[in-house]
């Protein structure tokens, strides 16, 4: 099995972090993984994104023209990446911030009110974890437990007090799908 995932959002929405978390979890499950960030000069209000590939086999290109899944946290990201998702692939939409509909009926569109759920948990910044939880429920690529186990590896030590909240956010997203 091979999954190419693009995660995109505003700078600060934590798309790089959930990318690293997913890659780390894949590595823990002895899969081949790669994490490729966009690092170009982005406009303020534009999108930051990363491409994560999790595979049973060696990964050739670390970038993808047609990802299996796109996780979009804001509208510019949806506009940019929704058209690129492979047929029968998944599009996970942060419906708290994106109202616009995607005009495609050949992909599986999953709407997650990620910011709303994160706010309920007490911190908007875990909206990214809600999205990642939903993703691993939709696509069986790594287990939820491994993702949770990887939080200690990916979050800096000073943020380890936030692990329970991140775990809850992952659960909430996971249980939505």
């Amino acid at each position, binding site marked *: 099995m091979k999954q190419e995932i693009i995660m995109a959002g505003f700078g600060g929405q934590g798309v790089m972090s959930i990318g690293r978390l997913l890659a780390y979890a894949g590595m823990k499950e002895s899969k081949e993984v790669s994490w*490729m960030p966009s690092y170009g000069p982005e406009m303020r209000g534009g999108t930051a994104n990363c491409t994560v590939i999790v595979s049973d086999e060696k990964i050739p290109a670390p970038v993808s023209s047609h990802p299996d899944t796109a996780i979009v946290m804001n509208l510019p990201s949806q506009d940019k990446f929704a058209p690129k998702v492979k047929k029968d692939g998944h599009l996970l939409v942060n419906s708290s911030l994106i109202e616009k509909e995607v005009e495609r009926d050949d992909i599986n569109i999953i709407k997650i009110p990620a910011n709303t759920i994160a706010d309920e948990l007490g911190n908007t910044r875990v909206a990214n974890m809600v999205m990642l939880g939903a993703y691993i429920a939709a696509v069986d690529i790594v287990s939820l437990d491994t993702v949770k186990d990887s939080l200690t590896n990916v979050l800096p030590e000073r943020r380890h007090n936030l692990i329970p909240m991140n775990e809850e956010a992952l659960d909430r997203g996971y249980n939505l799908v």
Partner: protein
Amino acid sequence: MSEKKLMKGNEVVGEAAIRAGCRYFFGYPITPQNDIPAYMSRRLPEVDGVFLQAESEVAASNMVYGAAGAGARVLTSSSSPGISLKAEGISYIAGAELPAVIVNIMRSGPGLGGIQPSQADYFQATKGMAHGDFRLLVLAPSTVQELADLTYLAFDLADKYRNPVMVLGDGMLGQMMEPVEFKEMRDLDELPKKEWATDGAKGREKNVINSLGLVAENLEKHNLKLKAKYDQMREEEVRYDDYKMDDAELAIVAYGTTARIATSAIDRARKEGYKVGLIRPITLFPYPENRIAEAADQVDEFLAVEMSTGQMVEDVKLAVNGKKPVEFYGRTGGVVPSTDEIYDKIVAMRGDK
């Protein structure tokens, strides 16, 4: 080997260098390689090493000259425009026959250019780094693991030949994360002794490190001695990797991250029945010219793919020596070629066959 870590290519350069026995880093910041000095500034003090941010790239490369002359394993890193500035020092280091490792995480040019990935410094790295009749040994990793392994190896090769070695990556490789396992930490006392180093002449004949040679006949001798080293590299250090070449009718030649994208295109083309393979040079100097010449007797045609307007393709043509057609596909300016584009080029070349 240690446990697997998920690390950024740039940081991996730093850790691999330290494990190879490097205790000195001199550099100057530039994107997209900044994680290398950042990592070294944190990590070198932990192993009693020295990290120094110089006042300029020229200064940094001359600090490397000094440290290498004193017998230390020393690293500098930069991205394209910064390497151009370091070129003067690199020529002196090569002239004085000193071992040093230089990492270039290429960005687009010319001039100040951009910060996105590129392979447009191929000519510079392999043929025209700076003035004078010298060569660098050039290693071109394509994965983060290979970046670790080749950085580690670079220090041994630099010592073996008393010559600067360049690790040539691009912004993509520097910025991406992949799992990596490091080789063991070298014991500094076990490293080969450098009898030629200027590390204090008490009790022995003094050593001289110099790149000045005003007597033409003597300097010619020196140049021929250097050439003999480069010839030895050609004999002993050529490294490359073949992928699905056994029955290939079209051979793609690509290095670094571009080779990985080409591999994806090859996998797709193979599913459609196109007999395509890849020769991936790992050493860019010495170049695997014999492997390519040999392939010219097997395949119908070649395709060089690069992130440039066509640099390495010239070495492919030299090796093929007119036996078979050599085509080129490249994107440049920081644009990374896509799997689709390379696939389309394969189909355009092989479609009617």
